[in-house]
């Protein structure tokens, strides 16, 4: 594409070879502490954890999940250091891959409301082998007063449940179903095209 055409460039699947990170190696996209938005020992730390499933309920071991969120006071981060982390700075962004049984984990803080009364959520984007374009969703914080009058959630009826994380002590559980009866609600924003046959 080299013209003045301003049609968005198409996405493509992340494929199977987007990489991994472990103590011995960093390969391609995943990186050290990509899944630790705060150090696991931080007093504020919570875990966001879930499993990504396909339409048969089989866990997906080759997905990459990213999150983007406000800090515990509802402030939207605006500083660099998202890749090379300063343990005392909260950049709000994280990247994790699913393990052999389809589970991803982030250590982060519970986001506060960005506006008075607004239900806080963690924005989640999903990439996977077999998934031809990115999918956006939201993990809303449970037991928040703002949930009851959130316009987006109200518009979804029963399916809104798929977007509300479940609390288990210092963990927030958020499974992602790409397809099926419990299919997670995914969002399409202005300018995005998700053509169907």
């Amino acid at each position, binding site marked *: 594409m080299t013209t003045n055409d301003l049609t968005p*460039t*198409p996405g493509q699947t992340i494929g199977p070879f987007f990489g991994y990170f472990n103590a011995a190696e960093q390969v391609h996209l995943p990186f050290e502490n990509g899944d630790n938005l705060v150090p696991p020992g931080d007093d504020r730390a919570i875990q966001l954890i879930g499993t990504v499933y396909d339409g048969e309920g089989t866990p997906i071991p080759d997905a990459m999940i990213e999150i983007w969120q406000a800090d515990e006071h509802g402030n939207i981060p605006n500083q660099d250091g998202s890749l090379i982390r300063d343990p005392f700075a909260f950049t709000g962004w994280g990247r994790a891959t699913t393990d052999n049984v389809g589970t991803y984990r982030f250590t982060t803080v519970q986001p506060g409301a960005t506006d008075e009364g607004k239900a806080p959520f963690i924005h989640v984007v999903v990439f996977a082998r077999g998934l031809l374009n990115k999918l956006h969703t939201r993990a809303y914080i449970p037991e928040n007063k703002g949930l009851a009058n959130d316009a*987006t959630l109200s518009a979804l009826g029963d399916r809104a449940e798929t977007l509300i994380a479940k609390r288990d002590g210092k963990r927030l559980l958020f499974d992602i179903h790409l397809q099926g009866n419990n299919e997670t609600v995914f969002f399409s924003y202005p300018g*995005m*095209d998700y053509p*169907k046959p």
Partner: protein
Amino acid sequence: MTSTNSPKLDPLATADSQETLSSEIQDISTTYEQSVQADPKREETQPRLNYPPYRSSLLRHPTKDLHHTDPETIELYSPAFGHRDVHQLESNLTIQHNGEPIGERIVIRGRVLDGNGRPVRNQLIEVWQANAAGRYIHKRDQHPAPIDPNFSGVGRAITGDDGTYEFTTIKPAPYPWKNHHNAWRPAHVHFSLFGTDFTQRMITQMYFPGDPLFALDPIYQSITDQKARDRLVATYDHSITSHEWNTGYRWDIVLTGSQQTPMEDEDHDH
């Protein structure tokens, strides 16, 4: 949370022939062409999530309609990256080891714009790719082609104030995969991009002009519209080629339009 199901890496991998695949691709293409001819508003600009010739998409696409909404709060902003995060040399994939990697040295240069034509400034671009033999550094890549000890195939860059980026790398080769019998991917470089709004986040693949595998590849063909597919193909550009050193390709990338108001843009200028 944990499951005793062992994941099936290729639950739908079959022994289908390329002829079977190509005829499925052709059928979808013909139906699409007729539908656009009847109603130009049906033109598609992105891949279909449900594209049966790409077998792995069958159980990995949502069947319910995506929920259209306007971005809210944090979605109007994006994480910040800078030269703290990415060293300038990370955009050169040919100098990461002690020796020169094997293959055709190329430079890929272009600009990242949003849907309003504004440059996406000081934002992260990541690339990853196979080497000149079609082999990735990856534990799941079992293709019996040589690993190049001088090529890892990963690069990062931060776009300039005018949205420009540049990578020096080695031209990747096609590689086989398990979608069907004798399946080969056209040569490509994977690109990962951020905009000014997190809703613009995208991952895609850049291809090289004239690849004979285009017609056979269900991932490339999952974009049913030829004009849209062409947007993923770089252009050979002799002005990027340099004397006795590298050949050059140009590839510009357009993200969806930013929904930030100009004032928010200034407040959040990074």
